[in-house]
């Protein structure tokens, strides 16, 4: 291909998002051709990526980086190796088909443009996720896939089920995402790099650290939530609320594979330990069986597919956990096989739903006559899923049995689980292929006819590729599996896929057993379903319902907490503040020895001299008494006017104190303000009848009084503690020295106000002015209905 690397990066990184932004516009301009126009973007990306394939197959890794956030070492770039290329090709290839499919599926929908925008944005994010080397960038794309998925699941937002599924998916995957972020940060701090390629090279830096357990837990939490591993699997079936193109693209082929990709990517960093293998195999196995059984329980075709997706994801995790060359190769080939057949099957199911009006497998039959092309698509996919030779699915099964074959009893157990899982999936594949299409035709809500070409091209192409892949085992092994396995494990591996059936190979017989069991499952599907439904009723509890319980519990809890804390009662808010004040005044000081000075010691004995009766003059005592009487009168005042007058008294007393201790300006102002306060209070009181009495019951009285005394004593004490120190009078000395000669004012206080600290005064008069405006605003208009009033019912 002729594109330079940087141009390729730019195209892949920017084009999907640009297309997403423009999609609504294109839709409104081009109408039904919008999808065809937008198809160019993923198709182009696919071709560009194919152009890189040659070098990757040759064993190279292609990387480039454009600086983005240098302060984090965050780059916008590209790291293409076998693994990421497989994923990226799958994403863009299926993405292109999905865009076409969606255009037909939602034809005439007024928000088709919006839908395509989300879809393309998702694709961009997904490509970013698999192509980025910088772990922060991976996280960002990871989160972006969650967000776009949220918007897509909730696309049909009028229904509560869709909204619920969307929130559920987002919450679950976001929790995982945040775990991933913390893990990434820890890994960065352990290794000093954000780049996974470098991290993979730093053998053991994470694995041998004390944080390995933490990082592993966090990464697994991320991967398991994203890839719907048990017990986080329940969001995936619900995500089927999304329109079918979304299910086909996100919830089978791409997004849910993000966790698998992450685990594969981090295998060299975190893998190859017994914890890793044990955890992955255990969770994967349970997920595999759980998903497969879940699928058998369903009658809705989409739900069946969703549950099998869970099973397949479990299978992939088991394979990553096994971690051998064969297992990784099996993982890659199974990933490809699954992506192709599952996307195709989803598209077919969407077509059936679209044309027949139902997806209930028990209500469908004999559609092959009316929808022959759809049937071919379904058959291609289902046979690959069944694992028939000549399809990619066959090799997937072969490789995984090979990987698990032989070893200790645990390995045999894993093998048994794999066989059981594959058998169940094979049975379900037959179910999907045969039940709706063959047998007697059943009446359906709509009169079925063949789906449009745009909806058929996907299944056919994907099914075709599955078969082509199945016919070209050499190519598959050499050009796809080898580079991918190299990318994961960092060692050369050349899986030998072949179509030569060697009946001495036990693996072949394992396949045969799988098929046989699969046919058995298909035959007994109805009975199994009835049995499972009974069991479900008996248990009466699912993780899905638990989610509701947790969410509603959280909401109720939040409501209770909020109502408890924000009750609207000012006096309690104030009590809280003063309680904090009491704590602030006593706790730090008592911890730091702030009360020591009170205890007489040899070197701190000075205090007792200072506490003997101070040398106050008689009239000073009188003023103190005056102030105290005023304060007492304020406290016990039984009428509003006495309270006001008492307020004036204590203020006047304070002014006299200021006057006695050399602060005439202060006294002056205090007096004026005090009198004016009384005046304003009086004027206001003239207009209303307020009760100034204290209605507090005794308990409140005692409680508030105690707190008040604590606060008062605390402030007094802290002030005294401050007073024990010597005072630094630099500032005042400077003012005294310069007031007359430099500032030309004899009244130092006034000079401070208008010159040394004039800015304070400027602010102060602004406050005065502001008070004027505010009071005018209060008095000017009354009871003008505002929107706020309508808020409360």
């Amino acid at each position, binding site marked *: 291909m002729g594109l330079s690397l940087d141009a390729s990066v730019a195209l892949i990184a920017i084009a999907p998002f640009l297309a997403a932004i423009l999609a609504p516009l294109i839709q409104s301009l081009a109408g039904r051709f919008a999808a065809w126009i937008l198809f160019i973007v993923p198709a182009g990306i696919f071709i560009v990526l194919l152009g890189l394939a040659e070098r990757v197959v040759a064993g190279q890794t292609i990387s480039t980086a454009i600086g983005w956030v240098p302060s984090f070492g965050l780059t916008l770039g590209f790291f293409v190796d076998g693994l990421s290329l497989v994923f990226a090709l799958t994403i863009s290839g299926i993405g292109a088909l999905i865009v076409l499919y969606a255009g037909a599926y939602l034809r005439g929908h007024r928000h088709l443009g919006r839908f395509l925008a989300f879809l393309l944005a998702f694709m961009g994010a997904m490509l970013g996720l698999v192509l980025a080397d910088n772990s922060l960038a991976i996280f960002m794309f990871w989160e972006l896939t969650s967000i776009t998925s949220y918007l897509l699941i909730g696309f049909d937002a009028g229904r509560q089920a869709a909204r619920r599924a969307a929130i559920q998916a987002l919450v679950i995957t976001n929790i995982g995402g945040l775990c991933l972020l913390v893990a990434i940060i820890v890994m960065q701090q352990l290794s000093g790099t954000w780049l996974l390629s470098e991290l993979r090279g730093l053998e053991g830096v994470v694995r041998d650290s004390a944080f390995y357990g933490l990082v592993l837990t966090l990464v697994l939490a991320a991967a398991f939530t994203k890839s719907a591993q048990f017990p986080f699997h329940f969001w995936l079936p619900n995500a089927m609320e999304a329109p079918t193109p979304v299910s086909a693209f996100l919830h089978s082929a791409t997004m849910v594979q993000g966790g698998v990709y992450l685990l594969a990517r981090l295998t060299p960093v975190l893998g190859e330990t017994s914890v890793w293998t044990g955890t992955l195999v255990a969770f994967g196995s349970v997920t595999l069986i759980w998903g497969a059984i879940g699928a058998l329980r369903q009658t809705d075709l989409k739900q069946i597919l969703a549950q099998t997706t869970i099973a397949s994801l479990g299978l992939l995790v088991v394979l990553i956990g096994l971690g051998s060359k064969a297992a990784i190769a099996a993982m890659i080939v199974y990933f490809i096989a699954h992506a192709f057949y599952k996307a195709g099957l989803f598209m077919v199911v969407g077509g059936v739903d679209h044309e027949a009006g139902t997806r209930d497998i028990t209500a469908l039959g004999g559609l092959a006559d009316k929808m022959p092309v759809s049937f071919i698509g379904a058959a291609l996919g289902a046979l690959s899923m069944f694992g028939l030779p000549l399809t990619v699915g066959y090799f997937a099964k072969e490789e995984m049995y090979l990987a698990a074959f032989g070893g200790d009893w645990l390995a045999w157990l894993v093998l048994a689980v794999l066989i059981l899982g594959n058998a169940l999936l094979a049975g379900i594949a037959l179910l999907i292929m045969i039940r709706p299409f063959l047998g007697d035709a059943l009446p359906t809500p709509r009169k079925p006819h063949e789906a449009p070409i745009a909806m058929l091209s996907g299944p056919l192409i994907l099914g075709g590729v599955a078969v082509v892949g199945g016919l070209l085992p050499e190519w598959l092994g050499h050009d796809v599996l080898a580079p991918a396995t190299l990318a994961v494990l960092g060692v050369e591996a050349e899986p030998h896929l072949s179509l030569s059936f060697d009946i001495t190979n036990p693996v072949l017989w394992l396949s045969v057993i799988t098929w046989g069991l699969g046919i058995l499952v298909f035959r007994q599907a109805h009975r199994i379903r009835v049995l499972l439904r009974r069991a479900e009723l008996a248990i009466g509890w699912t993780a899905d319902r638990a989610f509701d319980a947790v969410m509603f519990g959280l909401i109720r809890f939040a409501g209770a907490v909020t109502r408890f804390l924000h009750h609207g009662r000012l006096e309690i808010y104030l009590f809280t503040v003063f309680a904090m004040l009491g704590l602030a005044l006593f706790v730090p000081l008592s911890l730091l020895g702030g009360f020591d000075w009170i205890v007489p010691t040899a070197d701190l004995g000075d205090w007792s001299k200072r506490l003997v009766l101070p040398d106050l003059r*008689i*009239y000073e005592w*009188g*003023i103190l*008494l*005056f102030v105290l*009487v005023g304060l007492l*009168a304020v406290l016990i005042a*039984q*009428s*509003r*006017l*006495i309270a006001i*007058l*008492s307020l*004036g*008294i204590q203020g*006047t007393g304070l002014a*006299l104190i200021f*006057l*006695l201790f050399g602060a*005439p300006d202060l*006294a*002056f102002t205090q*007096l*004026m303000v005090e*009198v*004016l306060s*009384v*005046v304003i209070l*009086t*004027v206001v*009181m*003239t*207009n209303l*009848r307020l*009760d100034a*009495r204290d209605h507090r019951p005794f308990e409140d009285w005692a409680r508030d009084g105690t707190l008040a005394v604590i606060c008062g004593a605390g402030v007094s004490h802290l002030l005294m503690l401050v007073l024990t120190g010597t005072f630094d009078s630099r500032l005042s000395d400077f003012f005294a020295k310069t007031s007359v000669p430099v500032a030309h004012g004899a009244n130092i206080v006034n000079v401070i106000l208008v010159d040394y600290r004039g800015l304070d005064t400027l602010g102060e008069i602004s406050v005065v002015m502001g008070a004027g405006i505010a009071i005018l605003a209060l008095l000017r208009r009354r009871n003008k209905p505002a929107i706020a009033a309508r808020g409360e019912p």
Partner: protein
Amino acid sequence: MTASAFIDLTSLIALIILGIALLVSLVRIVIGPSIADRVLALDLMTVIAMGFIGAIAVRTGLTLYLDIAIALALLGFLATVALARYILRRGLKVDAAMELQ
């Protein structure tokens, strides 16, 4: 007795007398019984406080305190006017009854 000693003495006496006067008028403020009585006592109190400031001015020799005294008289008048209006509008009795409770 020198003039300044005399001034010292008289100002001290004046301060003490005025201090007592302040407290006496405080009693009327506290016991009421009607608002008007309290207001009247407060009005007197501002005048006494004015005298107090004057006495301090004499005692400290800072005659500029005089202005504070005058300003106090000015605003004291305003306060009395406002309180008189309060009485005019709110009456004496309701409040008096409340106080008896």
